[in-house]
């Protein structure tokens, strides 16, 4: 898994490519939490269009990101969900819990 962050003022876009599983999710978790905690970002957009697979540890990282965002009155937006990650979010009844944008432009708003 690779992560790239594009920061523009108080909004960051996090580009992930590759599977998010127990091996890689700690890095994603840390990246997202840092953006809220240390960088004080008001909006973090997670672009998952290059992510074919997310396991429950990846889901856990997303949930923690969302919790942190709420605590800071910030926004955590998912974009580019592929079929399998979407299905996993559906299965775990979390699809409606996240803010999901149809495109990066919409997410940047």
């Amino acid at each position, binding site marked *: 898994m690779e992560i790239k962050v594009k920061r523009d003022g108080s909004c960051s876009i996090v580009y992930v490519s590759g599977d998010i599983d127990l091996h890689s999710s700690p890095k994603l978790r840390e990246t997202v939490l840092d953006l809220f905690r240390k960088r004080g970002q008001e909006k973090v957009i997670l672009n998952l269009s290059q992510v074919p*697979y997310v*396991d*429950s540890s990846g*889901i856990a990282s997303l*949930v*923690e990101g969302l919790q942190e965002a709420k605590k800071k009155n910030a926004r955590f937006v998912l974009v580019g969900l592929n*079929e399998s990650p979407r*299905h*996993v979010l559906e299965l775990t009844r979390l699809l409606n*819990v996240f803010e999901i944008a149809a495109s990066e432009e919409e997410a940047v708003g």
Partner: protein
Amino acid sequence: MAEEVEVIIAGDPRWLRLARGVVEEFLAQTGFHAQQREEIAVAVGEAVANVIRHAYKGDTRQKFSLLCNEGNGAVEIELRDQGEPFDPPKEPIPPPDETSAGGRGIFMMQAIMDEVEYTRQGNTNSVRMKKYLPGKTG
């Protein structure tokens, strides 16, 4: 059922992708279509992650086996480890509430597979995950 594919690897998160890849290649030789193959790999990935995190508590030197079988209209994927005994919940597990960071693995396994069975023999834990082929039932 004869064991068709067996993989023995260390309980290290870096081999998770390899384990899922083996399952997907195995399933490519069966009657499951692509989306089902992906789902089954998701379930097996959760089971492997549990062996790594819970049975072996992160000790990446310990090894486990992944066994893939097909027969009687179903595939059965089994994991065997020599870690902590695990007494699994008897009832299907509900998914946790939306603020919880964990506790979704077994739920996903149960939701995707037709049967999930934990047993222990001697010092070996086994989890067997069964899925009937399209059009077949148990």
